[in-house]
């Protein structure tokens, strides 16, 4: 068999089950695009490569399967970097294929040349520069194996233009890259873990993205119910248990409900499953769960002991470990502890002022949730709106909530929503965003209009970089600077300019009705929701403080 490097890439991507690629063509990737044109793979043309990378995020995060984005050399590659770094921090199986200048021109400061390989070393799980078309036979399947094995992560394949056009002969196409089998937990360790759990009097399960990556939400639920153990979640663990489940405590950490952090103060066994003890979740790490022993199960051995030294650490696929653990867990309704937890929750509930008003932050989140329904996928950007959505949206299942956690990238929400809608066209997608965040990848409104996807953009508009303003108020003596957008663009007009239907809850006496109409009509639309400009997200743990030191609205009101 014979093929050019570009043709080979397309056939190997097809064999990996890739149906959609997001990208922008350029000089150094024209051969790749020529082969793509003849392929069965559908191309979605973004308007900035960062948009293309986040579209791939949306596809990967919504489905749990690897997603591919393309960029050309030079600025195409540098524009992908933010999305690649985001995938590294949130462990997303993203594969970026970048064009590169011809081999003979590498290192000469050629037109649109950058050291893509060097630039992506720190932000990928692994990367490649294909030095011949023949190398692609190994590289592409290996890239998929690496991206999906163990802890998922991004892989970059940099392909010089003359490698794309070089012809290679081969006997057969390689097998598609598949995930390596995960490490199996030692049965002795599983027995020790069961013993720790059974002996605990005030245990808490803290679940994160690793549970979702492992598909372990159902077994986690069975374990929690059997052993009577309350469950808290990191930002990326939201949806593991339905919000309404009696054992679910909500999100932990910087913007947790007061009771959630207080429960962790009192717990005597913290069972961390698929989490990495990120500082937003732990607060001051040395004072996180001060009375607790720690059981930590994660597929990445380098996470055990990185932040907190566990009493017992297991390296395993967390779902498999929980399946092994479940039969050893003694049924226990833990009445005393559950009763203490209920008392804390009753005394210190999450306070959600304005939850009835669709023009208030909690109100727009709750009303959107009710109208969008439990099958909707929800993406967000970064900032106050993200935290209000995390606190108040009633998530019901894994992969419903797509948000940039580790890197916290403004500009994530709209392209991620596009990707989710492309991957799961039968589902409605809602994107909560802010006026700061939306502008960062606003050009993708053109992509949204072109693809005609069912994405509803709900814009919490306060004419500010809200969380920056909040921090300046709370921790910098109200010395506001560079956190106010003095120019206040008309976002409804902008959306219409891109060919997207727009509604404005600030321009109507019937916001409920307008919101219902906007969310009920098929197709893309933007809903501008002007909100209070000086609202703060509460509670808040000051950066660097222990989680028990929460500031809330009542104590802060002057």
């Amino acid at each position, binding site marked *: 068999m014979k093929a050019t490097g570009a043709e080979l890439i397309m056939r190997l991507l097809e064999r990996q089950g890739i149906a959609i690629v997001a990208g922008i063509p350029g000089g150094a990737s024209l051969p790749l695009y020529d082969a793509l044109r003849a392929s069965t793979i559908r191309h979605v043309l973004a308007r900035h490569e960062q948009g293309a990378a986040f579209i791939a995020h949306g596809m990967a995060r919504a489905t749990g399967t690897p997603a591919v984005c393309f960029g050309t050399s030079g600025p195409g590659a540098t524009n992908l970097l933010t999305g690649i770094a985001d995938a590294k921090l949130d462990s997303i199986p993203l594969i970026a294929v970048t064009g590169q200048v011809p081999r003979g021109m590498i290192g000469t400061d050629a037109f649109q040349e950058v050291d893509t*390989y060097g630039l992506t*070393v*720190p932000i990928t*799980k692994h990367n490649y*520069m294909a030095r011949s078309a023949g190398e692609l036979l190994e590289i592409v399947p290996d890239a998929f194996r690496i991206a999906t094995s163990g802890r998922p992560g991004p892989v970059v394949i940099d392909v010089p233009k003359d490698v794309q056009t070089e012809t290679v002969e081969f006997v057969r196409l390689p097998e598609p890259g598949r995930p390596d089998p995960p490490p199996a937990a030692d049965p002795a360790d599983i027995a020790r873990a069961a013993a720790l759990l059974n002996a605990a009097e005030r245990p808490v399960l803290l679940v994160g993205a690793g549970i979702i990556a492992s598909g372990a939400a159902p077994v986690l639920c069975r374990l929690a119910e059997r052993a009577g153990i309350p469950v808290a979640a990191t930002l990326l663990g939201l949806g593991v248990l339905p919000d309404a489940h009696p054992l679910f405590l909500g999100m932990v950490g910087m913007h947790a409900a007061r009771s959630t952090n207080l429960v962790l103060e009192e717990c005597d066994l913290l069972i961390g499953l698929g989490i990495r003890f990120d500082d937003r979740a732990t607060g001051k790490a040395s004072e996180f769960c001060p009375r607790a022993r720690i059981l930590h199960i994660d597929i990445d*051995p*380098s996470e055990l*002991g*990185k932040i907190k030294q566990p009493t017992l650490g297991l390296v395993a696929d967390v779902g498999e470990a929980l399946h092994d653990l479940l039969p050893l867990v003694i049924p226990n309704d833990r009445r005393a502890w559950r009763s203490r937890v209920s008392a804390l929750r009753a005394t210190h509930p999450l306070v959600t002022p304005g939850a009835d008003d669709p023009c208030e932050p909690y109100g727009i989140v709750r009303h959107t949730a009710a109208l969008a329904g439990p099958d909707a996928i929800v993406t967000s950007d970064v900032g106050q709106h993200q935290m209000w959505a995390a606190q108040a949206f009633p998530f019901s299942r894994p992969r419903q909530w797509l948000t940039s956690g580790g890197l916290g990238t403004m500009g994530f929400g709209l392209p991620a929503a596009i990707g989710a809608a492309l991957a799961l066209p039968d589902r409605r997608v809602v994107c909560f965003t802010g006026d700061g965040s939306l502008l960062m990848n606003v050009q993708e409104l053109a992509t949204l209009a072109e693809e005609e996807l069912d994405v509803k953009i709900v814009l919490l508009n306060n004419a500010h970089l809200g969380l920056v303003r909040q921090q300046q108020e709370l921790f910098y003596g109200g010395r506001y600077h560079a956190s106010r957008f003095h120019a206040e663009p008309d976002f409804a007009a902008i959306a219409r300019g891109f060919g997207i239907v727009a509604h404005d809850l600030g321009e109507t006496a019937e916001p409920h009705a307008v919101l219902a109409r906007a969310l009920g009509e098929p197709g893309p639309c933007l809903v501008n929701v002007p909100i209070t400009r000086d609202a703060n997200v509460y509670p808040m743990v000051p950066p660097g403080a222990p989680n028990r030191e929460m500031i809330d609205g009542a104590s802060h009101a002057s």
Partner: protein
Amino acid sequence: MQAEQTVLRLIVRNHPGVMSHLCGLFARRGFNVEGILCVPLEEGACSAVLLLVADDRRNAQIVAQLRKLEDVIEVHPDPGARRTFDAVARYVQPAAPG
């Protein structure tokens, strides 16, 4: 050579990007590498790398992070290799005057 140093011996794949991966890992994790020796092994498909590092409580994390690199095939402590660094250090010292 200070007393609190030790050597890690790595077997790595031999291709142009591997040193970038090793040095980049140390830089971004804030690990301090005092010395590096790298030589290709027979056949040229792999190289051996000796890393002179501080022998402290971060070692376990360093080794865990190195093992995650796709191009790293093996990592082992090799404290005896310090004499190899001593020999190289003697070799590169400027000649004594007079």
